[in-house]
């Protein structure tokens, strides 16, 4: 095989809509890296491609759905979780993944996030946290660290940022992990686990936005940011999620790892179990028994 052939052969190409490339993301953006992890996870997860659906909201990260060669839905800002809920409940055989940004999932979509975690709807939410509303030019988000500069927090943010792993864990999510765009191996593995986990799984992926967040906050380029993740990350599987909050732009410790991995009946199982208990033979079981 010549060098040229080797370069051309992209191991994840079969999962991409190559007719849509080049993609819209900036050079150095972490989103592409995470998509690469996701494509590898799709290959490894053992789920037939035709049974895997992906749903994104509206944001830079939301463009992910459009580049993956799966049944893919690019819906409205903040609402991929309820759309995914409808997909999953209507056809329990599907594996449904939501892939979207921090503003989309945690700000405008926050109510859907907590309720889906509470219901334990069997979907996987991959939330890419770049600490800002990147697509609209860098406004402040509920994940923006204290003092970080954003166009609508020009003198620095002063609201407490969300600790999302803690939020979803306390609502009842059965799988909660956080990784950064530096941790490609661990992230890929987490994606495989989350997709195969029955119930609501959540992965927060910390990711560099060099064009907006890093530049505006004078944090260097994407490489510098990945280096920062590398040097400051501490892997703490099973960490107490109340202690994993990210409050400063440059925390001393970035706590990453698999925080939660527990069992609890998902929505459909709970519905089937409960209704068949109450209604006996009259109940029409939903999905495969």
């Amino acid at each position, binding site marked *: 095989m010549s060098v040229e052939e080797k370069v051309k052969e992209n191991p994840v190409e079969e999962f991409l*809509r190559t007719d*849509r490339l080049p993609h819209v993301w900036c050079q150095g953006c972490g989103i592409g890296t995470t998509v690469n992890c996701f494509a590898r996870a799709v290959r490894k997860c053992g789920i037939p*491609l*035709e*049974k895997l*659906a992906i*749903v994104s909201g*509206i944001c830079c990260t939301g463009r992910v*759905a*459009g580049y993956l*060669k*799966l*049944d*893919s*839905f*690019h*819906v*409205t800002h903040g*609402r991929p979780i*309820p*759309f*995914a*809920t*409808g*997909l*999953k*409940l*209507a*056809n329990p*055989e*599907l594996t449904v993944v939501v892939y979207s940004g921090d503003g989309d999932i945690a700000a405008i979509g926050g*109510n*859907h996030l907590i*309720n889906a975690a509470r219901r334990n709807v069997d979907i996987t939410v991959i939330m890419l946290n770049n600490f800002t509303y990147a697509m609209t030019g860098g406004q402040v988000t509920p994940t923006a660290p204290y003092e970080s500069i954003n166009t609508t927090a020009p003198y620095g943010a002063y609201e407490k940022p969300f600790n999302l792993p803690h939020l979803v864990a306390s609502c009842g999510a059965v799988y909660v992990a956080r990784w950064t765009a530096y941790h490609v191996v661990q992230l890929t593995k987490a994606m495989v686990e989350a997709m195969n986990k029955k119930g609501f799984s959540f992965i927060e992926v910390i990711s560099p936005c060099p064009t907006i967040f890093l530049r505006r906050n004078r944090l260097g380029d994407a490489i510098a940011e990945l280096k920062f993740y590398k040097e400051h990350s501490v892997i703490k599987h099973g960490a107490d999620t109340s202690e994993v909050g990210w409050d400063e732009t440059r925390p001393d410790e970035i706590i990453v790892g698999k925080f939660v991995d527990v069992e609890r009946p998902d929505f459909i199982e709970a*519905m089937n179990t409960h*209704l068949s208990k109450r*209604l006996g033979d*009259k*109940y*029409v079981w*939903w999905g495969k028994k």
Partner: protein
Amino acid sequence: MAEIKYTTADPKGVLTGVHYMDGNHAACEGALAAGCRFAAGYPITPSTEVVERFSVRIPLVGGVFIQMEDEIASSICLQGAVWAGLKAMTVSSGPGISLMQEHVGLAACLETPCVFVNVQRGGPSTGLPTLPGQADMQQCRWGSHGDYEVIALSPSTVQECFDFIIDAFNLAEIYRVPVFFQMDECVGHMTEKVIIPEADKIKVVERRYTSKPPEEYLPYKPDPDLVPEMVKAGDGYRFHVTGLTHDERGYPVINAQAQKEMVYRLVEKIEKNAPKIWKFEEEDIDGADVVVLSYGISARVALKAIEMAREKGVKVGRMRLIVVWPFPEPRVKEVANSVKAIVVPELNIRGQIAREVERIAEGVCKVVRVPHAGGTVHDPEQIFDAIMEAAR
């Protein structure tokens, strides 16, 4: 081209027999008869009984009800269910319907066949939770941003809540549009006799699934009737849909040309097919001096006024819209050409339907509005006075 496939109702969802029930319950039974197997909703008076009944019935029929965290969630959750292969609806009233508007646009743009039931109450804002209105008639048409078309139906009786919601589901499938079922508090809460036929007497339209293999399928390539064929998640098509302006492949294209092609088709698939969609009821139009044009509960109240005017010797005809949008413009024009005046009673004060009639009848015949702020129905005397004045 995907043929429009008619079948008969699945007997599991059909409660054949003679019943006494209210309009909300009848709408639920109609939806089940039409094949609706998924509902997402959030409680709101005066519509809640529809989903309450659905949550009692659906476990026995096979399907899912989910009470969502709000109406924004409900109005998109149901679209996920549709794209996974079910027929689905959401049900609400004023404030909830207002919250759903972004997803009405999403349904129009993705061409998701689905039904929005609005049991109208008085507004604006929280308004009159327990009392009727017909002031959301323009909202259902224009409520979301951008250019698109919907279909809307308005029942006048409890029987029609059953019958016409089946039409609503069928039209949603044929044209792949969000269809509004515009009830009102009176129709929703009054109890009448409802005859539910045998399942094999109920006509149901199947989804326009493509028979093309994935390599040949284009999600938004329209058939000659301007409606594209559909697929669902899980069948191996690995398709993409987006709420961005898109081309036939379903891929986003952000330019004026793509925009023009998309929005013209979204509008024209309803406009050009309108003659197949219109549905209205007429009586004594020929030779009439005055025609009362109305819909929903107001059309029913108008019957009394029409009778009173006829007793006074006025030749009164009537036209009742069942499908409100698309508006039966050519027929209203013909009627305008043959009468002195058209009288339009409705439970809103801005002439939401009357202004449509005025636009069509301009310079041809008089149009008399009979506005009412809602909270109750018209006093028939009010409509009678309008008829008498119009006849002068």
